[in-house]
């Protein structure tokens, strides 16, 4: 084979797009070696584009075995060495090494961020034989042909070593914290109970769990406070409007009743009319965090899901690189061209035309910046396949947001009418949009309601139809959901845009939390209690944030990697020693929490047959099959038992059936939507369905 250019990419889809973009005829050849796909493009000379499948190398213990700690010696190894179930990585790396052998030019075309830079660097260093110092870097934010060709023509002369150093440090510190603390917890529990259960915590995971526990404590210990609200139903021109009493909250019942009695059967007089106009600026472009929060609010997608969908849209070259913190859209992305391309879609045609008719296109940019990528924007390329519904939604959201940022400010008007009812003041409020501005571009994602009031004049008499006194109670603080938790992590500056969604998922996987509106389990409580008691620095938000800042400084070349690593180890060492000393106490505390969690997982609810026993998910000794049975069976007092599906997972829902009041369970099977099951064979809802 003649000498060729070797390009490494992060994912197979990206390899295909790059090869097609760089091939002179746009027809790169797809090849395969031991199941590993790669592409050959012809330009001045052959270009071999080989994909990775994410990280192929990872940090691992220098010694083998998992049943000990502390561990402070580590090395970078191929993933198949450190992880079970990563066997295909060996073949992948062998193929990469073989294809890199005959090359004379090496290009790292992985995503231009911390993770991508480490993926490219470690492959060039370890699999290609120390080519990291001669390799060039391809930098792009979209996978469109134009940008890829430009990035290839304007290669960066070397890898971004500051970014790589920062990334390596982050991986190494996270590994040191994760492996030591997780092993300490897991082994303490195992040694005490003799049973294995994976427990974990980490540099970011601990503080994140801390937010959740603090909120959970506030909710569980919440005592509501009574208060009263008064409203008046006012009739104007035959229509009824609701006016609020001037005090939002009345804390004493007698006071509220006195107002009610004073206003009963009395008419009102318009005392004052206050009209205000204000501008509402367009939204800022999407950084990944805002996109994730917006998608959660609008569609209920978890941050992880939104990121995955956005990644797919990026690999289809429909949107720019999504893992960005930027809220900036530089003119270089060519706003006009994007809008012109988008006008090819019927629903965007009119909107694009309106923006294109503007003298100047200027986005309302936010403050956040990202040196590597602009904000998330549509490339203008139209889908070549039918997008799945979630993909279509996210694409539409990105497109409409992109258009909205170029819109004019909206002008809203608010009207506040003060009405005097026998000496007590009520306010009638109206809201109106005077100029739509950017709002029309962001439909249907704009959340605002208009309340149009009829013409009212000062001194006008108004008929009060009814005075309503309502008993109210203060509410507990809302539970975090994956979207709001991600926002909180961003606000306090822990984790990175690439890791936050995964950390939230880990909290679910470890069973520290459950449900979409996140409820901390007993196990979650106990893990945090242990950490707070025996190693408070680990769950300190301040410590985590400071470490994040120092790691960012490595990227900016103002801090040395060695110093940060050494300091991180200095913090970790005494913590791990402390955990080791207290292993028995920690083990006991965690073991009983694990036991309670396991029992909780199997407890369905009170037995509706005997009324005193508890229904549990049990396994037959004879057949091994699972079923629901009553605990009173063992006392020979109740024979209640109900069959369960044998495939998938069963989880008690903690809610009773609305038809018969029996407890219910949720069944989850791979490839199917989870469904709720009432196991009462005589449930009236089942009878209803039959007829």
């Amino acid at each position, binding site marked *: 084979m003649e000498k060729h250019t070797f390009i490494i990419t992060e994912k197979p889809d990206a390899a295909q797009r790059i090869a097609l973009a760089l091939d002179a005829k746009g027809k790169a050849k797809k090849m395969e070696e031991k199941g590993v796909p790669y592409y050959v493009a012809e330009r001045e000379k052959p270009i071999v584009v080989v994909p990775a499948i994410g990280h192929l190398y990872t940090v691992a213990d220098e010694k083998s075995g998992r049943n000990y700690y502390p561990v402070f010696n580590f090395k970078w190894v191929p993933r198949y060495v450190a992880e079970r179930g990563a066997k295909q990585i060996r073949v992948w790396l062998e193929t990469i090494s073989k294809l890199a052998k005959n090359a004379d030019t090496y290009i790292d075309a992985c995503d231009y961020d911390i993770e991508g830079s480490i993926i490219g660097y470690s492959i060039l260093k370890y699999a290609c034989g120390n080519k990291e110092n001669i390799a060039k870097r391809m930098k792009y934010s979209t996978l469109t042909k134009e940008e890829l060709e430009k990035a290839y023509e304007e290669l960066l002369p070397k890898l971004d070593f500051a970014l790589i150093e920062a990334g390596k440090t982050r991986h190494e510190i996270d590994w040191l914290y994760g492996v030591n603390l997780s092993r300490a917890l897991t082994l303490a529990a195992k040694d005490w109970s003799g049973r294995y259960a994976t427990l974990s915590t980490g540099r970011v995971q601990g503080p994140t769990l801390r937010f959740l526990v603090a909120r959970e404590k506030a909710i569980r210990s*919440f*005592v509501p406070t009574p208060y009263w609200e008064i409203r008046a139903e006012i009739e104007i021109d035959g229509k009824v409007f609701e006016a609020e009493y001037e005090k939002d909250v009345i804390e004493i019942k007698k006071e509220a009743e006195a107002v009610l009695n004073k206003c009963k059967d009395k008419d009102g007089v318009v005392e004052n009319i206050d009209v205000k106009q204000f501008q509402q600026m367009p939204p800022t472009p999407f950084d990944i965090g805002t996109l994730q929060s917006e998608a959660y609010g609008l569609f209920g997608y978890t941050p992880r899901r939104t990121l995955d969908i956005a990644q797919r849209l990026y690999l289809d070259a429909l949107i720019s690189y999504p893992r960005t913190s930027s809220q900036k859209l530089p003119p270089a992305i060519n706003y006009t061209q994007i809008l012109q391309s988008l006008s090819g879609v019927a629903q965007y045609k009119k909107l694009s035309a309106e923006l294109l008719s503007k003298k100047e296109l200027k986005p309302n940019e936010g403050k956040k910046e990202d040196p590597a990528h602009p904000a998330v924007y549509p490339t203008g390329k139209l889908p070549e396949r039918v997008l799945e519904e979630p993909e279509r939604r996210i694409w539409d959201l990105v497109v409409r947001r992109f258009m909205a940022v170029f819109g004019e400010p909206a002008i809203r008007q608010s009207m506040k009418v003060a009405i005097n009812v026998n000496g007590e003041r009520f306010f009638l409020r109206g809201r109106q949009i005077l100029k739509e501005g950017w709002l029309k571009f962001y439909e249907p994602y704009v959340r605002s309601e208009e309340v149009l009031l009829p013409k009212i004049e000062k001194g006008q008499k108004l008929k009060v139809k009814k005075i309503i006194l309502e008993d109210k109670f203060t509410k507990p603080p809302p539970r975090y959901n994956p979207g709001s938790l991600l926002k909180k992590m961003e606000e306090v500056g822990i984790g990175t845009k690439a890791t936050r969604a995964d950390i939230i998922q880990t909290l679910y996987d470890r069973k520290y939390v459950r449900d979409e509106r996140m409820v901390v389990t007993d196990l979650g409580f106990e893990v945090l209690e242990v950490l707070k008691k025996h190693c408070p620095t680990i769950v300190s938000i301040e410590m985590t944030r400071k470490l994040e800042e120092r790691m960012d400084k490595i990227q900016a070349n103002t801090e040395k990697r060695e110093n940060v690593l050494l300091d991180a180890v200095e913090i970790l060492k005494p913590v791990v020693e402390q955990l080791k000393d207290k292993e028995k106490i920690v083990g006991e505390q965690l073991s009983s929490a694990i036991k309670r969690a396991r029992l909780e997982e199997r407890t369905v609810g009170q037995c509706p047959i005997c009324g005193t026993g508890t229904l549990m998910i049990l396994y037959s000794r004879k057949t091994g099959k699972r079923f629901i049975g009553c605990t009173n069976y063992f006392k020979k007092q109740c024979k209640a038992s109900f069959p369960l599906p044998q495939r998938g997972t069963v989880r008690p829902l903690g809610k009773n059936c609305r038809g018969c009041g029996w407890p219910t369970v949720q069944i989850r099977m791979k490839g199917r939507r989870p469904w709720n099951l009432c196991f009462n064979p005589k449930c009236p809802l089942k009878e209803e369905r039959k007829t």
Partner: protein
Amino acid sequence: MKCVVCDREAVKNNYCELHSKTYERILKKYEVWKKALEISWKEYLSQIAKNPLTGEWAREVAEHLIKSGEDVNGA
């Protein structure tokens, strides 16, 4: 000694740390309820025990206090 409400270790007033803090909160909130509704300690406890907005631990403590007949001064 175990907490009178749950399995955890009691640290104060026969409650574990979590239930003890909740108990203090219940005591403090009684002043607000008394001013707002002029109700007795018993009425207050029964109101918060049946209120769906009351947190799980607060309900547990309220139910325990109703059962034990303990008054607002802890007697």
